[in-house]
């Protein structure tokens, strides 16, 4: 069957863009790794440094992995004046890139050692070897977990922890600007929810913590 070249062209264009628009209408479409399908900003995972992307800022790394900016700059011989808002990929050099940062952060995480427990047989004297019921359960170690140094605010610190460390209620209420009703709230989540800069709050609170007697 013969087909007119103009009709052929229209069909090509219609099918191509029709498929793309169809997927977009169905919600199967994302053009950025910075936001998920619902438009929510993607954050690095505290338990998995490999989730760090080149576009993420040093601030995100500092807040998530409980590492100071000074430590990163010193470790990779980066200029001490580097702003915390700089993207990781913008600092790439012979001595520093995303994979080097990931490797360094991984080496800083402390694995929690969980002993392997083997349970003894329930029936130590089986009637016949064929019906012996031996239960051997091996508890696998937990995933590598990130441990924060003592009294250091991280992206997972709660207001209750501040109270436990001896920070007076009035002090952090003055810093955040309003009374805290739920002390189990994670400070970072609170700051994000209120549209406040977590790094500013963190710096002020950390200053207060550092002057407290140990």
């Amino acid at each position, binding site marked *: *069957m*013969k*087909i*007119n*070249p*103009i009709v*052929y*062209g*229209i*069909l*090509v*264009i219609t*099918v*191509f*863009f029709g*498929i*793309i628009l169809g*997927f*977009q209408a169905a919600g*199967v*479409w*994302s*053009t*950025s*790794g*910075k*936001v998920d*399908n619902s438009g929510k900003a993607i954050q690095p995972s505290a338990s998995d440094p490999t989730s760090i*992307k*080149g*576009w993420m*800022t040093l601030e995100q790394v500092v807040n998530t992995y409980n590492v100071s900016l000074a430590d990163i700059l010193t470790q990779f011989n980066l200029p001490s004046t580097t702003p915390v*808002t*700089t*993207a990781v990929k*913008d600092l790439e050099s012979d001595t520093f890139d995303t994979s080097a940062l990931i490797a360094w952060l991984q080496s800083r995480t402390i694995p929690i050692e969980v002993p392997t427990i083997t349970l003894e047989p329930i029936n130590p004297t089986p009637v016949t070897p064929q019906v012996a019921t031996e239960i051997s359960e091996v508890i696998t170690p937990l995933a590598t977990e990130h441990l924060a140094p003592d009294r250091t605010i991280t992206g997972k610190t709660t207001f209750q922890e501040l109270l436990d460390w001896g920070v007076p209620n009035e002090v952090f209420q003055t810093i955040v600007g309003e009374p805290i009703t739920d002390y189990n709230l994670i400070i970072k989540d609170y700051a994000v929810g209120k549209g406040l800069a977590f790094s500013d709050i963190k710096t002020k609170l950390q200053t207060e913590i550092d002057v407290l007697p140990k």
Partner: protein
Amino acid sequence: MTTKPNPEQVTPGSLKPKKRGIRAFLTHQTLRRISQIGVASFITYLIIRNAIVGENSGIATTSPEAYCPFGGLETLYKYITTGTSFVSHTHLSNVVMLIAVLVVALLFRSAFCGWLCPLGFLQDLVSKLSGFLQKRIPGLRRGISSLKKKGARLAVLDRYLRYLKYLVLVWAVGGAAVFGFMVFKDFDPWSALISIAEFSFTPGLIVLIITLIASFFIERPWCRYACPLGAASGLLGKLSPTYLKRDADVCTSCKICTKTCPMGLKIHDVSTVKSVDCVTCLECVDACPVNGALEVKIGLPLIGK
């Protein structure tokens, strides 16, 4: 009694009437150029916006990389095996673009390459510029003509070089699957072009420059010899029901079709154009002076009847 021939009547074997005015404009080639310009303009807009706004601002900008169908092919293995993650620099949009290209290939052969691909369009532009300059500069015309005559001796080389794109395809897709990142990216002229504002000197930039210079002498050199997406699209297009049919009974063997083919296919020699290299730009159909000598047909896949 003789019947006066109707100039509007189209009979197989009759010469096509010369189109004038608006009818000369309303052709499938105009539609093709409009679609190519549309896609190229959109990508250019993304490149400029990304360069101006930047990726580190609060506004999430879309990189032109997100619209590359070949990125979808490179990330496909990881996406299928993990279900959620992609190789770096690729997103769900790349996979959707790939699906669109492959469906088009299944239905209309490598029509994406001929009708939509901006890199193919860029090569077309350089070739048109070359033709324009050759018409006005006789010395250049003679020089390129002489080069083409010498190059004709390398026709065997041309035949084998066309297989290079399959090696590139295996390397790029296989490499991404094995190593988990885009091994081809630094050598990709398209990647170099969309990252041109970053002023990064990569092997891909050299490949891009070579491609554009070569386009001055040969039409669509990247598509002919090295494009991995074209290779995948061409192979899948073998299953397409559409094909070009040359009617030997009415064909005058003027070879205009072969001369106008940007992919350098010998159309006048075959009865059915089913080459994997055909980008279905239909320039041959447009150039053919005889009605019914060269037509787009729909038939049974693989058989072509």
